[in-house]
């Protein structure tokens, strides 16, 4: 191999690897265009509406970023969990619990100044989410309970708890008097609204999420604890021989992952909805951010910085889809299907990309064999994407 080849090829591969999700998104949109045509809609108009809805005006851009914020925070949590070798599908529940804790704080001290309550509420959300993520962590590490199932169950418990509290203890006094009794809390005091960055709906939470992304990156790659978390995720047995307390770091990664989900909930309440409400399901309040955030993280290749553009792209899709629906008059469920298509394409492209990497590894004898790294009989739960 010539020197030139050695230098350029890895760079090209990296660029291609980073572009694969984008290409996959384009492919998904191509398929969606065909579906639109079969429904009698003009795909060019449709995508025009989608792009205009997502980035067509300062307000639209702000909306996109606002939608991207919880996705990014959940996605960051996903990065930590998956890098630590555990799967956290409990984003929905952690978001709900974080939002509940933050709302409760705001409702209890309506007279307090904003600069006191806002940081405290963010902290409360962070803590509550951490507890909600830490429980499956403890169950997984010390009691061998499958964390995929336990996080899903914690989601359900959180939603039931939310429904109960919003219909009873935390219900808006106005709704209590009214016959309708809509299950929602009172609006939080105006001084608790997260400051707006520019005169749009864009709030401080978006900036907070980006800072969190940088912090998570530093945490995972520049600190000892982060290094240990990744070591446990890469090879738990080797980490144990190296003297790392595997169980403790398993709990820690799920706990931090949940905490970021809880922060997402607190940010949603203080930055966007200013109250909590429920329609009985989790998605009514979260807008499925707890699931979409996981996909955004997979899209960003489980890297905190890569998750930023991924979350923005998904936010744009969500916001643009609303406009698309209004302009082209396609059924709302079709728009959900577009998200599904993008997800499937991105994940399968990731599969394809990994396969390519493996083929390359196989050709270079110095690397470990692609399938030989794992002893048989060991569940490979951490390996996702």
């Amino acid at each position, binding site marked *: 191999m010539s020197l030139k080849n050695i230098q350029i090829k890895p760079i090209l591969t990296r660029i291609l690897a980073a572009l694969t999700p984008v290409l996959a998104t384009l492919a998904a949109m191509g398929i969606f265009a065909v579906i639109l045509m079969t429904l009698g809609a003009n795909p060019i108009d449709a995508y025009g509406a989608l792009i205009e809805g997502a980035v067509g005006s300062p307000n639209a851009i702000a909306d996109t970023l606002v939608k991207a914020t919880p996705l990014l925070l959940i996605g960051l949590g996903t990065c930590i969990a998956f890098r630590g070798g555990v799967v956290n599908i409990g984003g929905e529940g952690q978001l709900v619990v974080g939002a509940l804790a933050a709302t409760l704080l705001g409702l209890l001290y309506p007279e307090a100044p904003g600069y006191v309550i806002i940081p405290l509420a963010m902290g409360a959300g962070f803590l509550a989410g951490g507890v909600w993520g830490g429980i499956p962590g403890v169950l997984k590490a*010390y009691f*061998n309970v499958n964390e995929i199932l336990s996080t899903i169950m914690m989601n359900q418990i959180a939603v039931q708890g939310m429904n109960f509290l919003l219909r009873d203890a935390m219900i808006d006094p106005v709704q209590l008097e009214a016959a309708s009794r809509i299950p929602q809390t009172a609006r939080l005091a105006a001084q608790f609204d997260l400051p707006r960055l520019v005169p749009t709906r864009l709030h401080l939470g978006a900036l907070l999420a980006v800072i969190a992304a940088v912090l998570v990156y530093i945490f995972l790659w520049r600190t000892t604890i982060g290094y240990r978390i990744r070591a446990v995720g890469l090879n738990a047995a080797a980490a144990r021989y190296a003297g790392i307390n595997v169980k403790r770091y398993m709990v820690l990664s799920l706990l931090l992952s949940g905490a970021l989900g809880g922060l997402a909930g607190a940010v949603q309440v203080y930055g966007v909805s200013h109250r909590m409400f429920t329609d009985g399901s989790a998605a009514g309040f979260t807008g499925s951010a707890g699931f979409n955030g996981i996909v955004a993280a997979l899209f960003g290749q489980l890297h905190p910085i890569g998750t930023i553009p991924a979350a923005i792209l998904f936010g744009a899709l969500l916001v643009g889809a609303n406009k698309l629906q209004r302009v082209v008059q396609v059924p709302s469920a079709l728009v959900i*299907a577009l998200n599904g298509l993008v997800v499937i394409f991105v994940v399968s492209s990731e599969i394809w990309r990994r396969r390519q990497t493996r083929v390359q590894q196989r050709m270079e004898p110095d690397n470990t064999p692609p399938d030989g790294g794992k002893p048989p009989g060991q569940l490979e739960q951490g*390996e996702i994407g």
Partner: protein
Amino acid sequence: MNEFDQLLKQLSSIVLQSSPLIIAVCGETITERVGLINLSLDGTMLLAAMTGFVVGLQSNSVILGFLAAAFVGLLFALIVAFGSIRLKQSQVAIGFVLTLLGDDLSAFLGQNFTRIPGVFVKKVGIPILEDIPILGPLFFDQDLVVYFALILVGVTWWFFFRTQPGLKLRGVGERPESAFARGVKVNQLRYLYAMLGGALVGIAGAAYSLDVKVGWSEGNTRGLGWIALAIVIFGGWSPIRGAIGALLFGATKTLATILQQTYSEIGVVFTSITWILMLAVLLVSASELTERFINFMPLAWRRPLRRFLRVTAPMALGTRFGED
């Protein structure tokens, strides 16, 4: 006597409500016994429920509805198996994405068919058997879905533990390399049983939309797939124990609904109790603490206690096997 009849009616409805879950648990047990995890159960069941209902409605045939649903389940399981065996990817990731896709697709494709009447499975009592006191009304005065579920449990158990193909199936899930050395085509069997299990999960989905919760609405069976996955673990990968788990789940759920109406102030306790119980059950059956507790017991008790409390997963569950 009247109260007794009421109770009997309640119990027989629990049996009916639990039977789709029993079918799904059997299907997933087969898949996991052969060493694959099909995590897409929740999405598969939603899409299968929708497909089964729509096909049944359009063709005016319950059978065709079930067949279409089985095909959907088979297809999803095939994707998981192909992604894992051929593309060498994480089954968990593929399963999770398929869960979301099945949910979205069912909402999209079924949107014009929500909350309309359709075909459904009719109740057929089995002569003679239905006259047995108590057991008759519980198990033999039901519809075909219930009979199918009960027979399926028996057949699956018999197949697993009393036939040679069943032995091969378990061998592939426990020690694929040994099975391979003995000439078993490991990956071929994994495809086969993954598809069989997937088809059963699909049938379970249709059993909801065509029988238990007749009709289709968005998110009709959401959550039940995850329950089924948990019950498979609770059942220790045995169809009979799994079926008991499904029945217990149905019973706690009904009980919770009744208690919730009675004590509405603390209703939340009862709506989430099934989930908390599931967590507790997973904790007991998988935890090291249980092992320690068993070792405190007298020697003679240990074996039956361990059989009762502890479960172990198939050893090769979730791993790949490269034949090349």
